[in-house]
């Protein structure tokens, strides 16, 4: 039986069309995934079902949930449906909960609102148990929980009243891969147990493949294709779906590594942070973020560093860049400590955020030449170097006079690479450099990096939480857990035959697309 039917839905905000003629349906007990890249309108579709569109949005068409046409209902009636007939889980668990209210009160509030017949507190406890938070007291505040636990609380709020439809908007995007696996399993179990319809919004095709019965692919506010999961993924009808799939499983070809003498040597490095004292006269406590880490990067090596948030990989990166002091051990490049100013010019970095990594007030020519500051004197062929650097990363020399906001996210990441390469560093650090990008853009940037490897014989350390990316762009992988390197072996070996249990957990948790028989 059809639970939710969206029919010819159009949404405009201030005259700009956001959704055009969107139709989809969810039956009871069915998992339907809406997928697409940023700007596809997939989140807006979810908010239309909740009727929580931003102010000034106008919706036409019809959204029928359990026999009610939501677009025709008044606000008080909608309030009786929200949280009761339809629940919603959001992307960012860190901010989705009220910071000054206990988690028990937040779950109980939904119950008090819709189910006055029940004992709200007892029921809230039962719901928290259902989302596997047995050990967490109701009196906890959100800031006392981990990200995964908070997302469970958000799920508990959404399912507390036993809704017929659950909407999950990128529910695991902000989470680590092992936590993601648990949350996905939980959502699937809850939907199955209660016979709920689950409308899942996600950009990650691997997650879609694992979760969904049916898939709707969106682009620019329109549905391009929908259908049952397996046939759609193995034999997509639309070019865009095919391109999306290809980009998601994109493999690059790296040139043969020229394994030489070590370039970077990290030797028994320890980085401690002082923690605030618990008592006035207690001995100072420490958090050991990096715990006796040693590895080498040979010249021409492409090394990956993977691990979950809080494992110490960011601290290690900063220490390698000489931005952070270490308490023990040494980090040397060509035998010289990285804190030496002369070594700085041999290393450059590309950061994650394509929007935050440029001073918005400077022009491209000034931005990408910032590393020239490291040279004893500015190079005489400055203009040529700028032109070359821009051409190398697939931009045009004419872009030198533009400001960063005139570029898209992918183009900015190209600028960041241009900035890193302009002084021909011996080591480049890619710090989650493709993590914020859509899959198709990500594939292009990975190709660019592979191409630059051929051109300049790059040596790099590629830090990422995304195993599939690391697998294609590196030839050796370091796995980091709780400040230690637990595995350091050639990439393919790590993925096909992991030795450390933690590595195995990571690989098992990462959702993968099934090997597809693509028809051309």
């Amino acid at each position, binding site marked *: 039986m059809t639970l939710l039917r969206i029919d010819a839905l159009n949404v405009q905000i201030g005259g700009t069309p956001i959704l055009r003629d969107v139709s989809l349906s969810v039956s009871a007990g069915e998992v339907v995934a809406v997928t697409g890249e940023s700007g596809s309108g997939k989140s807006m579709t979810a908010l239309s079902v909740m009727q929580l569109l931003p102010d000034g949005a106008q919706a036409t068409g019809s959204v029928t949930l359990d026999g009610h046409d939501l677009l025709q209902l008044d606000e008080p009636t909608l309030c009786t449906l929200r949280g009761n007939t339809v629940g919603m889980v959001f992307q960012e668990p860190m901010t989705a909960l009220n910071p000054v209210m206990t988690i028990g009160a937040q779950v109980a509030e939904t119950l008090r609102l819709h189910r006055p017949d029940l004992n709200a507190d007892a029921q809230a406890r039962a719901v928290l148990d259902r989302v596997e938070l047995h050990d967490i007291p109701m009196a906890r505040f959100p800031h006392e929980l981990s990200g995964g636990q908070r997302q469970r609380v958000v799920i508990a709020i959404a399912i507390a009243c036993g809704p017929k439809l659950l909407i999950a908007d990128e529910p695991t995007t902000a989470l680590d891969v092992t936590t993601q696996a648990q949350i996905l399993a939980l959502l699937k179990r809850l939907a199955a147990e209660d016979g709920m319809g689950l409308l899942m919004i996600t950009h990650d095709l691997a997650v879609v493949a694992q979760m969904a019965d049916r898939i709707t692919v969106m682009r620019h506010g329109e549905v391009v294709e929908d259908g049952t999961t397996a046939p759609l993924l193995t034999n997509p009808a639309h070019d865009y779906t095919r391109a999306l799939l290809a980009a998601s499983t994109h493999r690059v070809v790296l040139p043969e590594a020229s394994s030489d003498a070590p370039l970077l040597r990290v030797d028994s490095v320890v980085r401690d942070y002082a923690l605030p004292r618990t008592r006035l006269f207690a001995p100072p406590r420490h958090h050991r973020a990096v715990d006796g880490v040693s590895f080498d990067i040979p010249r021409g090596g492409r090394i990956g560093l993977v691990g979950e948030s809080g494992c110490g990989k960011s601290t290690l990166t900063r220490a390698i*860049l000489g*931005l952070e002091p270490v308490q023990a051990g040494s980090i040397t490049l060509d035998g010289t400590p990285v804190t030496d*100013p002369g070594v*700085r*010019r041999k*290393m*450059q*970095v590309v*950061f*994650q*955020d394509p929007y*935050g*990594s*440029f*001073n*918005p*007030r400077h022009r491209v020519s000034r931005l990408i030449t*910032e*590393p020239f*500051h*490291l040279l004893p004197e500015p190079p005489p062929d400055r203009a040529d170097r700028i032109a070359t650097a821009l051409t190398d990363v697939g931009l045009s020399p004419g872009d030198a006079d533009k400001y960063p*906001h*005139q570029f898209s996210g992918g183009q900015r990441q190209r600028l*960041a690479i241009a*900035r890193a390469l302009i002084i021909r560093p011996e080591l480049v650090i890619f710090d989650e450099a493709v993590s914020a990008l859509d899959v198709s853009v990500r594939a292009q940037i990975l190709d660019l990096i592979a191409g630059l490897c051929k051109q300049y014989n790059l040596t790099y350390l590629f830090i990422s939480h995304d195993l599939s990316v690391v697998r294609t762009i590196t030839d050796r992988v370091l796995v980091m857990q709780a400040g230690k390197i637990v595995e350091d072996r050639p990439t393919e070996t790590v993925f096909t035959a992991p030795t450390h249990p933690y590595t195995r957990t990571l690989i098992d948790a990462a959702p993968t697309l099934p090997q597809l028989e693509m028809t051309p």
Partner: protein
Amino acid sequence: MSRALWLGGALSALVLVAAGLSFFWTPFDHSAMNIPDKLQTPGATHWFGTDHFGRDLFSMIMVGARTSIAVALVAVGIGIGLGVPLGLWAAARQGGWADEVIMRGNDLIFAFPSLVIAILITAIFGAGAVNAIIAIGIFNIPVFARVTRGGALPLWAREFILAARVSGKGAARISVEHILPNIANLLIVQATIQFSLGILAEAALSYVGLGAQPPTPSWGRMLADAQTLVSIAPHMALVPGVAIILTVLGLNLLGDGLRDALDPKLRVARA
């Protein structure tokens, strides 16, 4: 351009023009007493009326604007000149001893009731415009230090600052090259707010006789003169009061308008 920006800019410009013009021309000599013409209500000859000595209020307001602007401007200058470098320094050394000392010092200055201290300073070291400027200026320092530090801290965590550090730039250079231009908006808006507060504070100080001394006219003292006569000559209180209100209103609107106009988020949305 928003309406706030227009209105605020126009009011502020009006006051500035009046103050500037007063150096060359006023309808009457602002200090010339003319007892027969005393306490005249606003009219064709004396646009804003006259005071109890028959002095022309319009001329006094024009010259008084000079005092208000000069005191507030220099006091803001003191705040920016000392507060901004301190704030930049504290942000660059976040969590270090310099940060701690600067911010604790700020808290301490904030703990002093500003008006009381201003009164104390001017009372002890002598009433006058210079001491009024110092007394108001001191309390601008922690305001600018705080705004600067508050604006700079999130920038220090941004990746473009990390990129600059990877490029070997020192904290001082990054502060001037990257931090300062990106918090200029904040500082401009804060400066207009402090400027308007300075005008209010100057009026209060000269109202109690601790600001600019006669014969320099000032709006606050005009109000003090008006107080005992308020029942028979209310215009004497209304005229300087409205002058203060319009000036402060104009500056505040200008600040609000600038904040909206300079907000980079809005600008990106328009671009």
